[in-house]
Structures are given as structure tokens and as C-alpha cells.
């Protein structure tokens, strides 16, 4: 299917066909359009309404309370911990994935033997759900000390690396960073795949030209390749960023419900369904939505504009 053929054919039949085509198109996307309107945008609207209501308990109570729920969150010490944990998790997770992903991609791009094998190997963790990852790493990162050492701590002990033994997610304040490590393990292969595709799109002639001009290998990457794959970094940043804002399952599987490792998504679930504070739960939901939107909307706007320019 040559692109050229389509370009030549299209203008001729434009008027009649396009009309028919677009009607069919609209018809075919109707089911998903309706589903999305109801189940996504409808419920966003409903959640927004609940978030400014006094709803507490089993029965819906839509009494308007303005920004009370949001103001209460702002002074809620548990929500402070949530925000702090989200920030630490996001930094460790996103930077970890970007650096490891880029590193792996560059190594593979060097034309290693059996590249396909390694590519699959690094990508495989992504096929596992966060729950499974959490259960496995819960054991690996067992914080027990003394005679009960197990998992990675036991490995460190046997290898004589005693100074590395730590209490992982039991560490005060920074425990959440330990939870981010399995997430890095899981998603850095995916980041690698993104970067690898980006690297492959950089023409060899550009690198050759840089080398001919006397650039060192480091400079080739720093000055030529990296600027060219900046859009890939941006995409990866957005995808990883919104995953980390919404993280829930990994933490539940690794550490259960505990305030020390709380994040907004877990607080939202427990306060809504354990405590029946529907108004507060909806408010947390809206905060999450806005924080993800801050990441995603500029990105969508940017890509749409780029596509229009093409």
C-alpha cells in the first residue's frame, strides 16, 4: 500500500466518497463514543459534583459545601504524607526509568549480537501486572533483621555486603523510594523500547558527519543524538509521570494499607469505601485528575499542533 497511490486517488473522488466515508466513520465510532461520553466524561462530571457535596455515609447527600472538602485536604496531615510520597515516588521512578531505559537503548543500539533476545528480555517485566511484581518484591525486599533476614538482605549478608542491608519500605520517610524500585524494574524496559525506536530514527549520516568533524562518541550523543530524540524523552516523561501519579496496586501488594506509604489513590479508596466519606474521596479523585491533566493536556496540545504543522 503505497502512500503515493492514495495521495493521487483521493482528490479525484473527494466529494462523493468523503461524505459517505465520514458518515460510515461516525456510525462505526458511535458505540465507543457513547461509552466514552457516559463512562468517562459523564462520571468525571458526577465526581466533580460529589467532590463539592457533603456526602458522608451510605446515602447520597448532594448538599453543596463549596471547596470545604478541598480545604480539609489541604490541612489533612495524611494528605501531606500522600503528596510527599507521590513526589518521592515520581522522582525515583521517572528518573530511574529514563536513565536505565536510555542506557539500555544505547547499548543495544551499538549493534550487540543477539539484540532481539536482549530486547525481549528487558521488555518482559512490562508484561507482568503490578500486583504480581509487588508480591514478588515484597519477598525480595523483606525488611526483617537479625536471624530472620531474607530476600535481598539475605543475599547481601551472604555476599559480605552487610552495609547494604536495610529495612527497605520500612525506612521512615524514604520507604516509598524502595517501593519505586520494582516499578523502575518493570517499566525501564518499556522506556528502553521507546528510546531504541527514537535512536533508530536518527540517520547514521548525521552521526557520521559529526564523527568526521572530530566529535568524540560522547559528544555525538550529547550534541547530536539527544537533541533529536527529545520528543521521545517527553513522551516517556508523560507516560511514566501519569503512571506514578496513579500508583495504587503496587503499593497495596507490597505494603498493604499503611499511612507511612500512603498515596492519594489509596487514601481515596479507603476513605470512600472503608469510611464512607464520599465527598472527600471524590475531592481526592479530582485532585488526581487535575494533576494528571497538568501533565497530559500540554502534551496533547503540543502533539496536535505538531501534527497540524506536518
Amino acid at each position, binding site marked *: *500500500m503505497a502512500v503515493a497511490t492514495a495521495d493521487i486517488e483521493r482528490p479525484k473522488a473527494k466529494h462523493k466518497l468523503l461524505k459517505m466515508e465520514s458518515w*460510515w466513520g461516525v456510525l*462505526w*465510532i*458511535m*458505540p*465507543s463514543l457513547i*461509552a466514552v461520553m457516559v*463512562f468517562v466524561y459523564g462520571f468525571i462530571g458526577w465526581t466533580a459534583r460529589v467532590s463539592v457535596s457533603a456526602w*458522608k*455515609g*451510605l*446515602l*447520597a447527600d448532594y448538599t453543596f459545601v463549596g471547596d470545604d472538602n478541598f480545604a480539609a485536604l489541604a490541612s489533612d*496531615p*495524611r494528605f501531606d*504524607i500522600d503528596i510527599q510520597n507521590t513526589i518521592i515516588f515520581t522522582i525515583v521512578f521517572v528518573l530511574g526509568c529514563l536513565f536505565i531505559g536510555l542506557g539500555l537503548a544505547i547499548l543495544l543500539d551499538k549493534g550487540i549480537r543477539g539484540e532481539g533476545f536482549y530486547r525481549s528480555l528487558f521488555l518482559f517485566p512490562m508484561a507482568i501486572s503490578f500486583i504480581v511484581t509487588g508480591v514478588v518484591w*515484597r519477598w525480595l525486599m*523483606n*525488611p*526483617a*533483621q*537479625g*536471624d*530472620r533476614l531474607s530476600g535481598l538482605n539475605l543475599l547481601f549478608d551472604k555476599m559480605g555486603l552487610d552495609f547494604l542491608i536495610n*529495612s527497605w*519500605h*520500612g525506612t*521512615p520517610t524514604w520507604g516509598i523510594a524502595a517501593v519505586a524500585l520494582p516499578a523502575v524494574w518493570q517499566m525501564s524496559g518499556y522506556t528502553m523500547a521507546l528510546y531504541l525506536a527514537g535512536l533508530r530514527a536518527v540517520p547514521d549520516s548525521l552521526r557520521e558527519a559529526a564523527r568526521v568533524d572530530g566529535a568524540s562518541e560522547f559528544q555525538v550523543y550529547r550534541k547530536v543524538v539527544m537533541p533529536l530524540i527529545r520528543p521521545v524523552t517527553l513522551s516517556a516523561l508523560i507516560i511514566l509521570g501519569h503512571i506514578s501519579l496513579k500508583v495504587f496496586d503496587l503499593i497495596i501488594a507490597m*505494603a*498493604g*494499607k*499503611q*499511612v*507511612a*506509604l*500512603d498515596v492519594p489513590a489509596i487514601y481515596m479508596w*479507603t*476513605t470512600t*469505601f*472503608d*469510611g*464512607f*466519606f464520599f465527598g472527600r474521596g471524590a475531592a481526592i479523585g479530582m485532585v488526581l485528575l487535575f494533576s494528571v491533566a497538568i501533565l497530559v493536556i500540554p502534551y496533547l496540545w503540543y502533539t496536535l499542533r505538531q501534527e497540524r504543522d506536518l
Partner: protein
Amino acid sequence: MKTRKTLRFAAVFLALALVAAACGGDDEGSDTTVDGGTDTTVDGGTMMDSVEVFSWWTGGGEAAGLDEMIKIFASTDPDIEFVNSAVAGGAGTNARAVLASRLQANDPPDSWQGHAGQELIGTYVAADQIEPLNFLYDQEGWLDVMPDTLIPLISNDGNIYSVPVNIHRANVVWANPTVLSDAGISMPTSLADFFTALDTLQAGGMDAPLAMGEQWTSMHLFETIMLASMGPDDWNGLWDGSVGWDSAAVTQGIEDYAKALTYTNSDASALSWQDAGQLVLDGTSAFNIMGDWQEGFFRELGSVPQTDYVWAAVPGTEGNFQFLSDSFVLAKNAPHRDSAIAWLTVAGSNQGQDAFNPVKGSIPARNDADRSLYGEYLLSAMDDWASNTVVGSLTHGVVANDSWKSEIDTALGLFLVNGDVEALQTAFVAAQAASG
């Protein structure tokens, strides 16, 4: 053009998949409705009566116990089909989320499981979803066979709202007898003795003589230490409003609790309650405070009472039975009200409770059980149940409604992070104001 056709098929396929996925996702929440809401037709085409009972008993001794009780129900009421709508996961959290959405949609099951006390009253009575059962208690004579101190804890304004099928005790301390005798300690009976014993063990080189598990087990420890510190009258007073959360008794209780925490293991947050019990069996720790389901776990491991483990009321709480209970309610506008009452009659009967409890590892709420069916620990619990002052458990839904409990849970979780006694007490006062 061929590609375009393929694309069109792909689009249709995707759209259908999306719709299917949306429906599928929806089903997950409500599939119990599908088989539960309808009466089933039996062979001759006649309508058979049914009763839909909703619970989170999907595994272990609970599900096995429920099955035993269903067998009794099948023999007493053979004309009623029992529809078991159990939802798995999250220690009931998932089930209660499903139940909440069904009640909001006016599609109640006939009867459902809940912890007796405020967990049911604060949520379902407040929302006008369940019926008082005083008539059934009178009719079946249950008031004569259940402890007097129990009834007010499961009532609201004189109305009794649920039928307790089993009783668990929260204020039990489990100990390793070998560790105790090696250290020359006898089972402590007061909070002061308890702390002395823990000090002795710590001085003897035991890091964490008191084993604790993840966050909710810290609330369990908290409620038993509070009861020991305050006594039953003040403890009850906290929940009916006659004792303030800002009182000195509460401050003292929090300080005792904070002291108890200093003897616990540093990896508590990574352990389940079973893991914590295991530490006692292994002799890594000497004590564990946990409800008497811990005994079921010990037995499962083949441990022998008196040899591998011993028990007592939590030091300072002797003479008090801090209880929790699984119970069944009658839905308002139950689709099959008569069948539901028949089910509740079985659930409260001697026969039903003696079928359920030996399997579940708990004692009946009635005090006329067949003692030959129960083991050594359960017999001791039965004796205490019949003679002790009954007080309610916080962690397991008796004394506070769900909202209040979840606020207290947050406060205790924050306390594990920052250890700030004053902030904890302030948070307790706020929790009562927000949801009490």
C-alpha cells in the same frame, strides 16, 4: 481499498471490544445480582422460594462454617433455596463496596453479613436499610440465652438490629511458655506487670518481646491497651459520649500504648497477623496480642495448646470480654422477607451456631452450646463469655461506625509515623467530631 476495508473491520472490532469490556467491567460488580435477584423455577414449573444471603465468606473456616450452617438450613427449610452471594477480597472491603452500590441502586440482598454493633448500625440503620429484629428475639427466646451486656452493644434506641452467629474475643495475649519459663516470668496480670516482664525480656537480649503486624493490628493492640488502662466503664463511655477523648484517662491510655509500641518489632509493617503469631511460636518474640482467630492459625500449624502456646486475657483486662461478632441482618424491603426470617432463625438457633462455630473456630453467641464440640481454648472463652463483662471491639466494628473507625485508623497510622501523643489525642477529638 482493501486495506481500508480491513481497517473498517478493525474499527468495528475495537468498538465492540470496548463495549464488551465496559459491560464486563460492570458485571464484575453486580454478577451476584443476576443469580440472586430472580426466583428459580424447579422441575414442575412451580416457583421455589429463595433467600439471598450476602457475605465475604469465600474461603477458609468461615466459608466452611457457612456451608455447615446452610446444610442445617436445608434440612429445616427444604422449600427455600439458599443463594450464597459471597464476594471475595480485601477482608470484606470489596464486598462492602459492592453491597453499598447495590443498596444505592435499591437492589438489596435479603440478608447480609456484618460485624455486630455500630459498623452495621452506623451505616445501615442510619441509611434506613435494615429492620429491627426484636420480634424475632422475643419469639425465639434469644434474650434468655445471650449475655445481658451484649444486647445494648448491638442495639440502637432499644432496637436490636442483627443476629450474632459467632463470638470472637479481641483481648487475648498469646505467649510462648518456653520463653516465659526460661526468663522466669509468669503470665502478667496487670499492665504494670506486663511492662516489667517486657523489660526483663528486652534486658535478656530479646529485641522485640511483643510481636505486632501491619497497621490494622496496631489498632487492635491500641484498643486492648486502652481497655486495660481505662477499664470497661471509661472505654464504653468513649463511645456513648460520656467520657471525652480529651480526658486525662485517654492521655494515659495513649502513653501506655506508646510504651507498648516500644517493645514491638521494627518490621511490623511488613508482617501479617499470622506472621506476628509465628514469631511467638518460634520464640523470637514472647507475646502477641491478637484476637482468638490466632488460635485457629496455631492449630492449623499443628501447635499444641499449653505446650507451644499459652493465653490469657490481655494484662489488666481480666474479667472483661472484648468481643466482636459476625452477624446477619434483615434488609428493609427484602425481596423474600419470610425466607430471610427463616434464615435468621436458623442463624440464631443452637443447632445453627453449633454447626458454624466449631468449624470457624469461634464460640456461639448463645450460652447453651454443646460443649463436647469445642476445644480447650474455646471452652475457656465460653466460660468467660458467660461470666465476664462484655465490652465491644473498635477494630472489628462493635463500638464505632465505619467513618469514625476509619478516622481513628488514619490517626493511629500517623502516630506510627510521627509518635506525637498530643497530635494523636487532638486527632481523636477531631475524629469524633467528624463522624461520632
